[in-house]
């Protein structure tokens, strides 16, 4: 009798664990493809990219020191980026400086997207061959980093940014400053 209970108990425990993990995935609390974030608290890697709109102009990380700013990696090939786009526009309206990085895209498509839907960015760097992406440990889009006034990465969000994740991870860094 006792011996028969042991496998049953193991089964119930495992089933419970699996349901718990599925639940967490369903709520977006857990993503098995996530890899641990390496960058929080570290200085943001410097970059110099050409501007999406003007190959003759440069977008440099050094130009944004002295106040907190966001770096948003996106691409027109990425459906979640389209979904996120209106929210970025509302952040712009609140005066949040966002530097966009058009990743693995063509200039024409990147430009067309921003012309049609509005441009939430103070500047857009063009990164067709993952120069910045690899340097910043990006492996999917959209991905948003928060860099503080001293150039330290303070927060990072994978996937489309929304009000909930904004309040959770980002908002406080802008409140302190004002």
């Amino acid at each position, binding site marked *: 009798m006792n011996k028969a209970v042991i496998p049953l108990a193991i089964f119930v425990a495992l089933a419970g664990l699996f349901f718990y993990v599925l639940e967490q995935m369903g709520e977006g609390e857990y993503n098995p*493809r996530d*890899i*641990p*974030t*390496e960058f929080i608290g570290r200085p943001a890697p410097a970059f110099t990219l050409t501007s999406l709109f003007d190959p003759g102009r440069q977008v440099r990380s050094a130009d944004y020191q002295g106040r907190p700013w966001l770096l948003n990696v996106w691409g027109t090939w990425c459906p979640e980026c389209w979904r996120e786009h209106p929210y970025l526009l509302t952040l712009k309206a609140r005066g949040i400086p966002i530097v966009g990085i058009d990743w*693995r895209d063509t200039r024409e498509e990147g430009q067309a997207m921003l012309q049609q839907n509005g441009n939430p960015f103070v500047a857009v760097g063009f990164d067709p*061959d*993952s120069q910045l*992406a*690899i*340097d*910043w*440990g990006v*492996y*999917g889009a959209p991905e948003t980093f928060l860099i503080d006034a001293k150039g330290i990465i303070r927060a990072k969000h994978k996937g489309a940014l929304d009000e909930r994740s904004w309040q959770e991870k980002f908002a406080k860094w802008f409140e302190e400053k004002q």
Partner: protein
Amino acid sequence: MKQLLLGFLMLSLVPWAAATNIEAYDFDSPQQERDYKELTTELRCLVCQNQDIADSNAELAQDMRHKVYRMLKQGKTKQEIVDFMVRRYGDFVRYKPPFDTRTLVLWVGPFLIFALAIFFMLRAISRARRREERAELSEEQINRAADLLEENPSKSTD
């Protein structure tokens, strides 16, 4: 039947077609080329997470291969390149995780489980053997049993 065969034939071509997506890189030395091959099979593609970057056609994997190539060309050592990737993508980017306190269970766990399995198996065998030994009867017992059976064979037929 012919169509089925043709289908299998086409299917068999798929891996071959996938394997041809290798960039043509020039290396300074055979050693550099060896390093490149080793590195690209040791680094994980972050998009298709069960492939190394040598194997993956994901665009990020292509760019990572290119990055590895450029760093080798700059004279970076293998260790420097692995460190560079780990600093950006974490230990996850390595197919061979380092041996430290966080990964101890990962490295030692399977051996531990194996040792436990051996232990329990040996115990079960020795127990079974002991039970067998106990079941064996001494000569005296056998004689007595035979006597008893002979004494009252009629009883059971009553």
